């Protein structure tokens, strides 16, 4: 009788020791936080881009030691700070979700494995069964807690998934449309500044082949910087779209939370986010 119960207990624990759904959610949230963090450099560059553009109207060789900040650039900076703060709020949400999803994930698995070993050993030896049973009771309470934890996670994800999508779309628009437009304009103004420098030098008969080479080299370096920043902006927007799609899928499956299915569902999103983050960081 005791041996039969022990075998049943071992089987039950083996089932409970399988991989944990919140762990997959934690990985997704962690990638979300890393992705959102990369946006800070882009938001900071919005005001800087405006100031750099204003500077292109100064003649080459002005050598100003401080940048004037036109009112429009101050306004861009102020709004960009607001957008950055919105990104931080979203980031905090994913951090809280990550903390909740990470709660006891490894511990539950370890507990199950420990109990499995203990139950197998004690079934053979038949020693101190009350100790094993009290441990099992503790584990079952933890399993119930784990169910509660999964319910809380699902509630949170489902409750705000549409809000999360709207905010992600807004952040994506701020960088992928508004900032991109700024960068393209700054690039054109930088080119105009070089053109003007050349025209003035030609008028004064001071234009040389050396000057052409130096200016061309500068321009190529500037173009590479603009290209990298524009790519970063588009990568950031793509990453946020990926994040929104992943979050929608997570919300759609949050109530079932089957670990293996969830890992298969979120895995590609996590991989895509992890590959986009370096492309964003590269420009800054």
């Amino acid at each position: 009788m005791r041996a039969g119960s022990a075998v049943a207990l071992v089987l039950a624990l083996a089932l409970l020791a399988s991989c944990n759904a919140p762990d997959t959610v934690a990985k997704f949230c962690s990638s979300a936080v890393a992705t959102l963090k990369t946006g800070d450099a882009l938001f900071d560059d919005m005001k800087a881009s405006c100031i750099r553009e204003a500077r292109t109207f100064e003649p080459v060789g002005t050598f100003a030691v401080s940048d004037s900040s036109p009112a429009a650039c101050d306004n861009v900076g102020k709004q960009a700070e607001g957008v950055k703060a919105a990104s931080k709020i979203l980031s905090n949400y994913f951090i809280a979700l990550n903390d909740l999803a990470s709660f006891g994930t490894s511990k539950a698995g370890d507990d199950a494995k420990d109990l499995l070993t203990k139950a197998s050993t004690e079934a053979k030896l038949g020693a101190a069964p009350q100790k094993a049973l009290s441990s099992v009771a503790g584990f079952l309470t933890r399993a119930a807690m784990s169910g509660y934890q999964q319910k809380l996670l699902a509630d949170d994800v489902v409750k705000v998934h549409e809000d999360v999508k709207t905010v992600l779309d807004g952040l994506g628009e701020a960088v992928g449309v508004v900032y991109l437009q700024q960068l393209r304009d700054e690039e054109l103004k930088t080119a105009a500044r070089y053109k003007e420098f050349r025209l003035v030098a030609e008028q004064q008969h001071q234009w040389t082949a050396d000057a052409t080479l130096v200016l061309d080299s500068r321009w190529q370096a500037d173009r590479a910087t603009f290209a990298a920043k524009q790519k970063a902006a588009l990568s950031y927007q793509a990453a946020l779209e990926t994040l929104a799609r992943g979050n929608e899928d997570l919300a759609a499956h949050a109530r079932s939370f089957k670990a293996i299915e969830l890992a298969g569902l979120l895995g590609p999103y996590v991989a895509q986010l992890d590959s986009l983050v370096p492309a964003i960081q590269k420009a800054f």
Partner: protein
Amino acid sequence: MQIDPVEQAEELAQIFFALSNAVDDFRLRPDNFNALPPDKRQRLKDQAQALAMRGQQYTADALGAILQAIQPHLQDIKQATRDAKDALARLNDVEKGLAIVDAAVALVGSIAAGDIGSIGGDVQNLIQAISPTDKS
């Protein structure tokens, strides 16, 4: 027809940037540049700058409109964040309780079994479980 303030501001920014660049293109065409007196060239340059800065102002407006659109959703997300933190605090309290029970059961088991060698360690574990932990 509904007006999208974000789209409107983005379009206006683009229009003013394009106007500014058109003035620059005209000013920097070699024939024009050489034909225009310096004061006229400077005036065109100032106008191009004013148009560009107007474009930047609409850029700020576009960002402001985006912020306004997402504001109510941010409130919901803030609430969900608080809910998740509260839930975690509740789970931590239960976990702490379980750790105390585990340690107490182990100590009682060792005393009942007369396992003197384990009693010291079990007492230590119980003290550790009871002592308050940092909640960061």
